[in-house]
């Protein structure tokens, strides 16, 4: 494995970690209006110790894109300028709202709650929109923009699935029952998102089509959609079991939701490889000079164990069910 390959894997891991981790706390943010004030307090507590650390993975992913694939960074962030700005405004709003809503009373708290929801929604939609633009190779035209908007909406649904299944794990009683119902709504949206992206990528690019429809390799590749369907069924079955009170770990729906995201991500990575900008720029064409990659790799390998370590400690310390009132 050469250096660009190593950085591609690192960037992939960072992006997937970001999507799964910030995905669930953005999802919890989007679910806020569906809950009572007391439940909102518990929901905020369930993500409180984790949400801002989750966002460091986004910084790592974009950072690797900048230092390891500077050409691709220029193309991708240039093309996605508007949705990136929208995402940043959304993330700023929800970050500030998260802190201020705890101190605010009356209609002030309602205002910050609303901004927390709006910021979470804007950031999620913008990320989905970027995915839609990225996989069509930033093609111009109203149809492609509409496609990106639909992918944006379905990524919101995917984050709702992650958020709802996270709440199934972190809450109990009535709120958990609500979260089980939300999980199934989210699952429907994820099915739409995965189907859309899977159909669109081979339609848009000859290269992607050739990679997936090449018998007999196609048969082996069908393991991916098969596994994705199985993970979806696992979300459905495990939420049903928990609702009926049958013995099932409350972490199962979240695990299954993460599996859906990981499998979909693998499929996408297989479609795109070796391109970092589809049909335009391979990872080797976009990579920085090997000497700078070596320096960055040394830095990344020194820092990564700490990130993984403190993340593990945080999740261990704040394990178990969340309670309201910690921040009120």
């Amino acid at each position, binding site marked *: 494995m050469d250096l660009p390959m190593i950085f591609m894997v690192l960037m992939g891991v960072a992006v997937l970690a970001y999507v799964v981790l910030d995905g669930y706390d953005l999802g919890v943010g989007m679910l806020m209006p569906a809950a009572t004030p007391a439940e909102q307090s518990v929901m905020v507590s369930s993500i409180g110790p984790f949400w801002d650390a989750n966002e460091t993975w986004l910084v790592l992913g974009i950072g690797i894109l900048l230092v390891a694939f500077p050409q691709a960074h220029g193309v991708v962030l*240039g093309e996605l*300028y*508007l949705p990136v*700005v929208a995402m940043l*405004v959304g993330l700023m*709003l929800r970050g*500030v709202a998260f802190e201020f809503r705890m*101190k605010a009373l009356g209609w002030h708290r309602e205002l910050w709650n609303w901004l927390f929801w709006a910021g979470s929604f804007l950031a999620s939609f913008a990320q989905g929109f970027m995915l839609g633009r990225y996989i069509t190779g930033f093609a111009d035209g109203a149809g492609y923009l509409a496609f990106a908007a639909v992918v944006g909406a379905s990524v919101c649904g995917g984050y709702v699935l992650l958020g709802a299944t996270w709440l199934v794990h972190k809450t109990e009683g009535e709120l958990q029952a609500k979260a089980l119902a939300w999980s199934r709504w989210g699952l429907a949206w994820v099915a739409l998102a995965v189907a859309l992206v899977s159909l669109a990528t081979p339609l848009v690019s000859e290269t992607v089509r050739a990679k997936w429809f090449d018998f007999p390799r196609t048969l082996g590749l069908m393991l991916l959609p098969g596994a994705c369907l199985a993970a979806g069924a696992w979300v459905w079955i495990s939420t049903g079991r928990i609702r009926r009170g049958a013995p099932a770990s409350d972490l199962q729906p979240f695990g299954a939701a993460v599996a859906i995201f990981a499998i979909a991500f693998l499929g996408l990575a297989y479609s795109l490889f070796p391109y970092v900008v589809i049909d335009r720029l391979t990872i080797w064409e976009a990579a920085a000079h090997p000497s700078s990659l070596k320096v960055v790799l040394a830095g990344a390998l020194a820092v990564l164990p700490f990130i993984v370590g403190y993340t593990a400690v945080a999740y261990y310390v704040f394990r178990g069910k969340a*309670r309201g009132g*910690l921040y009120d």
Partner: protein
Amino acid sequence: MTEIGRQPWLVTGVLRTREAVGEISPGLLGASLTAYTLTYSAMFVAYMVVLTHMAGKGAQAVPAPAMPPGLAPAAAAD
């Protein structure tokens, strides 16, 4: 001042500012700058309101919040 003095170079002797400028339309740049400015202004106003409110309340003894078991500092025993 250092940025103005550096012109027309972005990296002196290596990269001119003109060569490094992205292909973002002026309208889009204006819109994003406006969005950032509005957001930060609104946040600043909210921040000042909260600070003024908290300062107006004055200092008062706050009872220690009940910590969930396992999180309470050990020093609290004495």
